């Protein structure tokens, strides 16, 4: 049978505040185990939470950026369950009245724009981390992450393919980066998604039974997990069996998912209002203040790039998907004055490196200013294409100024006409066979000479100049 795929995402994003959500411990990834902890984030007896105001501001900011309505009144609840990484045995979250609700995000699927509903965004706390003991016996707990502020973004089940799910996650990541509420480092788990997926026979209105896959922490994993789950459910349904409402764990290495607990077991979280935290009332002024602090978002920025810089829609879309990259583009365009050149180089050289080495290169020595300088040298013909690539390589390694690299490695194009002419004469004279070939009409010999000459000039010759002089020189033998 053929089915429609119905997907909703629950996206958890850690907020990049200085301190944790309920105590004055440092909010930072990693560190020696249990060194960024205090009695509060360890849930010791008698301790109480005190809400970090910035957490509320960031959650609202994210909500506004996703076109949500902001609740004038919201509050906190306890979600009770036992797990060793949850020191209080309850998670403080916003179960009944989330701070943001009823929003949307537009995504680009091929040439279409699709609107995905945001059901709610709520504030909650992260849990600690479990690792296996090096002795092979037992598990170890590090509570440094316990109490790190999170927002959970719950979408409506508006996604209809694994690809859309991936694109939505990419889009939301971009929004969170633009609004600077989260650093979205997926490899560090600061952005992760749960995939809720069900199938519905095409043409049917009855929603299918959905499963949930937890804690997917890469775009690829989201897409693959959704794809595999859609296929699994189709097989189950096609064989006349039932899909169970269950939570499954995706194993990205094996490319398959397995149920997490018994099917019968339905978790009863016994949610109730957190008595230790007073409710939150938000007024218009507060919201307006936060609204004013929201920067230009990716969609708007993309339109501006198309109009202002005249770069292709596709390029503009890709570049604006990453705020740091977009910032580099803008600055580099300003420095070198040729946005199309910058855009081309980002789409090729930079994207290639990002694919190979990861996004880290955007946070290293490369910035809009030095990238722009390199492209300015290129644009003025001061260095060759190959030399520009070489400067980027060295820059990423040493962080030197482009001008310093160009001078140190002697990369400036060699335009001294007599020197170039002499080199050409010499090469032509010392390769009589090639000259004979050329004279007898074998045009390939021209390329041979070009290569030899450029090598002799150590790659610094200006190809058009060399070509012009070489043509004249060879003319003499015809």
């Amino acid at each position, binding site marked *: 049978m053929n089915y429609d795929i119905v997907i909703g995402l629950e996206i958890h994003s850690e907020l990049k505040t200085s301190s944790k959500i309920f105590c004055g411990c440092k909010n930072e990834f990693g560190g020696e185990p249990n060194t960024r902890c205090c*009695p509060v984030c*360890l*849930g*010791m*007896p*008698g*301790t*109480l*939470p*005190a*809400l970090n105001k910035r957490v509320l501001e960031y959650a609202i900011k994210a909500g506004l950026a996703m076109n949500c309505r902001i609740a004038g009144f919201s509050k906190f609840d*306890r979600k*009770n369950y*036992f797990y*060793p990484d949850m*020191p*209080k*045995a*309850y998670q403080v979250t916003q179960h009944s009245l989330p701070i943001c609700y009823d929003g949307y995000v537009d995504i680009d699927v091929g040439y279409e724009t699709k609107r995905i509903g945001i059901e709610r965004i709520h504030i909650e706390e992260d849990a600690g981390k479990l690792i296996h003991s090096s002795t092979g016996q037992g*598990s170890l*707990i590090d509570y440094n992450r316990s109490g790190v502020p999170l927002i959970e973004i719950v979408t409506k089940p508006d996604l209809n393919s694994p690809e859309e799910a991936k694109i939505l996650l990419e889009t939301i990541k971009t929004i969170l980066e633009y609004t600077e509420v989260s650093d979205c480092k997926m490899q560090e788990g600061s952005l992760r998604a749960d995939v809720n997926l069900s199938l519905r026979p095409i043409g049917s209105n009855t929603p299918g039974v959905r499963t949930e896959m937890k804690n997917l922490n890469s775009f690829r994993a989201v897409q693959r997990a959704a794809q595999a789950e859609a296929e699994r459910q189709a097989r189950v349904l096609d064989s006349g069996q039932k899909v169970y409402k269950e939570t499954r764990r995706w194993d990205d290495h094996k490319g398959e998912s397995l149920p997490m607990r018994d099917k019968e077991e339905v978790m*009863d979280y*016994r949610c*109730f209002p957190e*008595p*230790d*935290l*007073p409710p939150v009332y938000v007024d218009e002024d507060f919201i307006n203040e936060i609204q004013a602090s929201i920067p230009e978002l990716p969609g708007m920025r993309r339109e501006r790039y198309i109009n202002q810089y005249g770069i292709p829609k596709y390029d503009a879309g890709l570049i604006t998907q990453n705020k740091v990259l977009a910032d580099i583009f803008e600055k580099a365009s300003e420095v070198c004055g040729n946005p199309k050149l910058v855009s081309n180089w980002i789409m090729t050289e930079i994207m290639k490196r990002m694919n190979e080495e990861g996004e880290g290169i955007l946070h290293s020595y490369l910035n809009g200013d030095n990238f722009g300088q390199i492209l300015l040298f290129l644009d003025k013909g001061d260095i060759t294409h190959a030399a520009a690539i070489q400067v980027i390589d060295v820059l990423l390694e040493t962080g030197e100024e482009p001008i310093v690299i160009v001078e140190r490695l002697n990369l400036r194009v060699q335009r001294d006409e007599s020197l170039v002419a002499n080199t050409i004469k010499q090469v032509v004279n010392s390769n009589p066979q090639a000259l004979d070939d050329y004279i007898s009409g074998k045009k390939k010999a021209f390329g041979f000479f070009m290569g030899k000459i450029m090598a002799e000039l150590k790659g610094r010759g200006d190809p058009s100049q060399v070509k012009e002089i070489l043509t004249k020189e060879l003319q003499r033998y015809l």
Partner: protein
Amino acid sequence: MSICKKTVTETAELLRTRKISADELVKEYFDEIKKKNPDINAYVTICEDEAIKAAEAAQKIMDSNNDVPYLCGIPMTLKDNICTKNIKTTCASKMLEDFLPPYSATVYKKLLDSGTVLLGKLNMDEFAMGNSSEHSIFGAVHNPWNTAFVAGGSSGGSAASVASNLAAFALGSDTGGGIRQPASFCGVVGLKPTYGLVSRYGLIAFASSLEQIGIISKDITDCGIIMNVITGHDPMDSTSIKRPAEDYSEGLGKNIDGIKIALPKELFGSELEKEVGNVINDTLKRLESRGAVLSDCSLPTIENAIHAYYIISSSEASSNLARYDGIRYGHRNERAENISDLYRKSRTEGFGQETKRRILLGTYALSAEHQDELYKKALKVRNIITREFRNAFDEYDIIAAPVSPVTAFKLQENLNNPLKMYLKDVYTVAANLAGLPAVSIPCGKDKKGLPIGIQLIGKPFSEKLLLNVGKQIEMEAGRLEII
């Protein structure tokens, strides 16, 4: 008269006038504790070495400094659910038998800053669940008036220590009467402040929305003095209130002409023992003769207060006590083979019967199946009760009632009948549901010679008025002292 019988005010005067030094005073108390505590079992931890050091330090301050805090050198004690840094805080539970908090409760910090000396930590019902102080791994607290009887609870150790002169004053906690009822059973003053007036930071939680740390003292004046120290906003407790400081010890005993006191008929129900009722009525008449205006009134929904109380408190307890899993602190079963085993075995061994009973009750009341009809319903009732109080306080200044329908009962008497035990809280729980201040003042004794207390409930932050009217009662009835 033994110096330990003296009030905080009297003791402070002796210290100030150099009639005794702080370290001598503390030693007197430890002599008394060693003599009497074995029979009463109020203390579970005695901090003799630390206390002597602290007293010597207090004496140095008094010797060298003109700006000496009023309570400097005063020996005091704390219920064992108030965290004291590096001093065992057990909640009278096997679960926390060896727990050494790496932090102090805000109230304890405030008391230390004011120069008081901690003598030790006090027995109680495990995790403050109970009203007889029998549910304790350290054994029951005995009533100093007659050791065959309970001291009340859950702050039984606090009331018994002050009544038997084993501390100048004590702090306890009141979730549903936990300070007022033992104060009444032991013949001392017990005050539960308005919810939010005293920081709960470092008070080991039982039912967060109901409980407050409060005072057990020998008289009303002491109570006011200690209020001045322990109240105030605390950024560590988001439910603590920001408001201007008051002097609770000032002007006590001033005339109460025209003060309107209401007597809700629901708090004088059929369960009220006649003897207790008579003493309360006599006390009220004497207040009338001093100018108070008495009226009958009705707070109809208060009859459901006990139901709402047990549902809400157990629900919150089931969540507050879920953290005890033996991993980071507390009792741990060493033989557990997997994580679920670790939880189950540690918790089963670490918690006593009554605690487990409340956890089960609360889990039941919060479960998806019953939450609406029990927990949420109880919150609705709580709202109605609060409104009924508010309406009453539009007309009256104070609500008066017995603290308990009975005087202290015999040890073991109710231990196997939890419901019967719970129902004894019928007069105290409403103040907790509505977050109101309430004080218990000794006003007489029954034929067995056991103390009876009267309860005054006020509108939020009316502690000064409560203490003033309480002072009138104290002036009429006199302090109850064990001879």
